[in-house]
């Protein structure tokens, strides 16, 4: 009898406590800083001038940013010049005139946009550069550590094609566009590895212009001159599949190591599985996009003045071969939405 009474009393106390506590939780709790964060982002206007939205990496970034924009109420406009630098300059000049709250730029090379970016900064517009840098440093750069990328790729070949390891010590560098920032910096990394490994012979050093058929033609021609070729390194998985096709057509699939880098899309993993590529240094465009999304939030804060601080954020790089060409190393756009 006493125990029943005690139970009833306890239950009453607990229920009463809950009833009095609940309303106060619903009314007042604020996540620290959230209000200011929402206010900083809401209604802001961000313009992105890419090289082209036809690239897998660009699609990954924009997918991530659009999700971010939809959640926090800012707008993202993409002004795609589709590989045309003239149109790019026009898009950029137009965007500067509109005075957006933030400008995101992917540079076709180090010089083309250098002046416009300085103008934007002088006009008080914060500028975030993604993956391809300009000679003008702006508020923030999010993208690859391209010198490290060059060292990683040539380092891979230095291992596979060391004296006595491979069929020869001959390697090929299939560049993209010679004046592009990625090329210039990767070349620096390559030179460092070549200097440290004097046995390695760079037998061909040509630009494939990010085109798979051009990559195939160069590789096929070089294979005729150097049938004992040991390795090919390139700059974009979607182009180096052409090098893989040339190697396969020459019947040298096991012999030639093909190393490249890529955004980490499923098509890259498929190319590894098809045997067209040996290793992709995956720079996870999806994660780059998330880092850049963080930077977008940062640069939209009211207390951040344009060009007051100059940040650099290098994204992750994962070595992907046929043992780990799965799951998190191979995204599809639908998964990022």
């Amino acid at each position, binding site marked *: 009898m006493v125990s029943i009474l005690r139970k009833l009393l306890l239950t009453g106390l607990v229920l009463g406590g809950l009833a009095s506590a609940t309303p106060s939780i619903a009314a007042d709790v604020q996540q620290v800083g959230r209000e200011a964060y929402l206010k900083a982002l809401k209604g802001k206007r961000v313009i992105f001038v890419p090289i*082209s*939205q*036809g*690239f*897998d990496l660009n*699609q990954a970034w924009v997918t991530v940013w659009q999700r971010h924009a939809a959640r926090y109420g800012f707008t993202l406009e993409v002004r795609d010049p*589709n*590989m*045309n630098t003239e149109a790019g300059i026009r898009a950029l000049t137009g965007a500067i005139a509109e005075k957006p709250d933030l400008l995101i730029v992917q540079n076709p090379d180090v010089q083309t946009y250098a002046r416009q970016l300085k103008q934007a900064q002088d006009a008080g517009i914060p500028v975030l550069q993604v993956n391809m840098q300009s000679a003008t440093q702006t508020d923030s750069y999010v993208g690859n550590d391209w010198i490290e990328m060059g060292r990683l790729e040539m380092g891979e070949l230095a291992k596979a094609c060391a004296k006595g390891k491979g069929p020869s010590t001959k390697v090929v560098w299939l*560049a993209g566009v*010679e004046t592009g920032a990625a090329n210039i910096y990767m070349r620096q990394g390559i030179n460092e590895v070549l200097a440290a490994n004097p046995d390695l012979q760079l037998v*061909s*050093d*040509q*630009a*494939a*212009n*990010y*085109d*798979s*058929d051009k990559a*195939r*033609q*160069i590789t*096929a*021609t*070089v*294979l*005729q*001159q150097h049938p004992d070729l040991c390795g090919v390194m390139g700059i974009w998985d*979607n182009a180096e*599949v*052409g090098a893989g*096709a040339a190697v*396969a*057509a020459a019947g040298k699939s096991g012999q030639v190591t093909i190393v490249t880098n890529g955004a980490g899309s499923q*098509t890259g993993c*498929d190319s590894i599985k*098809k045997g*067209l590529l040996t290793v992709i240094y995956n720079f996870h465009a999806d994660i780059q996009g998330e880092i850049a999304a963080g930077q977008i939030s940062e640069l939209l804060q009211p207390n951040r003045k344009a060009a007051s601080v100059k940040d650099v954020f290098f994204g992750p790089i994962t070595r992907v071969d046929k043992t780990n060409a799965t799951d998190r190393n191979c995204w599809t*756009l639908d998964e990022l939405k």
Partner: protein
Amino acid sequence: MPGFPSFRLTQEEVIFCITVVLIGAFSLFLPKFLTAGNILTLLNNVATLGILAVGMALVVVGRGIDLTMIAVMVIGVAFSIWLSANGLPFGWALVVGGLLVIMVGIGTGTLVAVADVPPIFATLGLASVVYGAGRIVFKSDVVYAPTGYDWFTFLGTGTIAGIPVSVCAAALLAGLVALFLRKTRFGRFIYATGDNPFAARTIGLPTRPVIISQYAASAFIAFLSGILMCAVVSGINTRLYNSTLIYDVLLVVVLGGIGLSGGQGGVRNVIVGTILVGVLTNGMTILNVSFTAQNLIKGVILLAALAIDAVLNPRDEQTSQSGDI
């Protein structure tokens, strides 16, 4: 012309001589240039260019120009791949893609023949319409071919008697078009229309159907070369539309000696031009000349060829009035 020897070389012969000199020089200085393997690689590398140039030649002979070829090639093939990704067997998808491409060609031809839009503007405009429409459907520049079709793999990597399939296909197509131009009545109509469209119409030739079918044929030939390219690298790079490829095709045609004023030249000119570009590119790649410098050298050679031709075959009243672009 005093001071000049009395013999005359046609532009085709000039280009042929330059090619022979280049082959000689490369063979002397590049030890592995003149090997069967390298020659086959060289031919394989220009097979798609050659096919495109044959298509372009058909139009240029008829006093037109088809700048839609690259757009039609990449979008036609990408469209077929898209169809097959949506469940249609790849073979049928290519058939549908081919039909669509022919329709586009007929459209281009109609604009030129019936609406009388100058071909350079009609095709320039249509090229961006075709490419733009494609870009709305396919988000990515690079579209990968479906796997698991043996015949398609064979097209890309197979050989017939040691010769790559794409080289065989290019040779076969060149032969067919040459026969068509030289031996059929319709082929002669093309020359007649190209030489003087007004005279051709006056004597009762069906000039409009001739022009329309030329563009349909060039579009279809562009599609065929796209299929080959796609088979070779297991995908198609639609961004080729933005590359200098269309100018390379024109370079081959003009270099080979087919005048843009129409009515002259044939497949043999295309072959000579294609081989010169192939030899030049192959040699420069072996010599490790940079991509930018390669384009520069190609441009200089084109100018030189045109200049030599202008000296050897000076323009007269007739050629200067015949509607050269």
